[in-house]
């Protein structure tokens, strides 16, 4: 590495005003382009226009269904076990069909506890839970309302039209 010492700017360079003028030129350029419609405004007008989340974005959870409309979930408790925030609460019940072992009677996720790590999705052996809803804004009035139940989780669609 070589350190070079350069003489300070002379003449108009040394007055600082020259650089002020250059900076003012830049900012007024942006203003004029904005006023006459040339500048692409990056702002999304939020409630009306929402951002499309990128693929792989971990949003609100959803439960997938079998073709019969039942939850794919077999209540194996893998997700509840791996969850670092302990926000998944499953109660298993015996399935009427003898070929199917168990199914979730309740499947609750406490969104206030959830850290959106995606471990439940990784852990699931039957691909029953995903976080691809693309929903990132959920506000509510009571703490209880942040606990989402099985029905809602099953109803939540994917942000992408064709889930694999």
């Amino acid at each position, binding site marked *: 590495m070589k350190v070079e010492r350069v003489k300070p700017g002379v003449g108009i360079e040394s007055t600082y*005003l020259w650089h002020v003028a250059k900076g*003012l030129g830049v900012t007024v350029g942006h203003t004029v382009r904005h006023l006459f419609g040339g500048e692409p405004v990056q702002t999304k007008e939020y409630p*009306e226009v929402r951002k499309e989340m990128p693929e792989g974005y971990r949003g609100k959870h959803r439960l997938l269904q079998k073709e019969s409309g039942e939850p794919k979930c077999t209540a194996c408790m893998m997700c509840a076990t791996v969850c670092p925030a302990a926000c998944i609460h499953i109660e298993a019940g015996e399935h009427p069909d003898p070929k199917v072992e168990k199914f979730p009677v309740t499947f609750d996720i406490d969104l206030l506890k959830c850290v959106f790590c995606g471990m439940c999705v990784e852990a699931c052996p039957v691909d029953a839970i995903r976080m691809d809803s693309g929903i990132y804004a959920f506000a509510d009035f009571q703490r209880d309302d942040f606990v989402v139940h099985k029905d809602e989780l099953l109803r939540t669609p994917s942000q992408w039209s064709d889930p694999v």
Partner: protein
Amino acid sequence: MSWLLASADYLAVLLRLVLSAGILLTVMPLTIYLERKGSAFIQDRPGPNRAALFGMFRLGGVAHVLADVIKLVSKEDIIPGGVNRFYFKLAPIIVAFIPLTTFMIVPIADVVRLTDTFATPMATLEIDGGLLWFFAMTSLSVYGVVFAGWASNSKFSLLGGIRSTAQLLSYEIPMALAVVAMMLTYGTVQPNDMVRAQGELLWGFLPQWGIFLQPLGFILFVTCAFAEINRVPFDLAEGEAELVAGYHTEYSGMRFGLFFMAEYMALVTSGALVVTMFLGGWQVPWLPTERLVAEAGTLLPVVLGGIAFLLLAAAGRLIRHYQLYTRGRWGDARDKEPLVFVVLFSVLALAHAGAAGAAWGAVLPGWLPPVFAALVQISVFTGKLLFLCWCFVWVRWTMPRFRYDQVMDLGWKNLLPLSLFNLLLTGLVMLQPWGRQVLPATPVVTLLLMWLWKRYLLPAQARMPATQRLVVREEPTA
């Protein structure tokens, strides 16, 4: 009849009080709007655009300023424990009071001569001291800052107050010296006479505005004005990263609102002084008051017609705006807002065009020409003032903040000697009868003197430091 004339005098005082306070107090919220919208445009954002009066009138974001005021007024006013309550409450009052009183000496139009016996100046305060009033009042604003900083019983407030005080005191001196140079240039301390003198022509074609006669004085004064009103790049008193909000950290509700509004009132007042001293005040370039009054018969219809044309153009632009952006955008009454203004502007344009037609070739009543001249001058003054306010906003969103020692260096080591040399040379040049003709060239000599001073005349230790930029270059590794 004497009582009538006396009451006319009182009326005139009342009128000009209302006019100048009105200009200050309407330009102030407009500046806040300019600040929010200007910063947005500079940063490629749309800026405030949602709040609507009566669910319909967004006014391009002006409604947000009103919403801000409602928010500030309705917020709880917290006075923390351990503060000195008297000074705590006094401080925002002082800070808001100063710019209002300083603005009073600014002439917003030339002396209006309604009849041969009745004339009224258009600055609220016509005193012999003139600009000395400005020195006296601006220095007082330090007290508000000191009181706020000390009475808050908070480290951040105290540090902010101290910084601000030191800065205000340091920049007062070059600012005053720059103004003294302007007094020498125009040979008067009266703001109105100064503006009058700026109507004359330099070399036969250029108005003798301060900015042309004293370019260096202009830069000095504007720089100091930035420092005086604690604005970027000199807003260290409220450097968020270090001091939370500086001297008004502990204030909330409308007491904070007063500080906030005082900041913008000070901005408008500084702008008004810059306009008065350097941008020709109420002068319409190449149109002195006498010509405005004498040719009111032709100018009045032209101006009215021009306004009608501008209103029509604005209405057309609004229709286009409606078609392009607003139609169906929100899905409520806000969509229809431009149409209301299209109708309003069209009606106003018709009225102006009608008035222009009526005034064309008509014999004007005796009181109309001076009033017309005054109205034109007030509009021109307000226009220049708004431009200056935009410049303050523009600089704020362009430049980073100085470090504290840099601020002090700039003030004491650069601006002070510069303003002294400027004063000296202005005095020498103005002694000559042809003084004003060569005055625009003096900055060259001033800068030369400054360079000599910093390079050779100062004691060795204080000379221009051999600051060197370090350039680190990676050498290619073999």
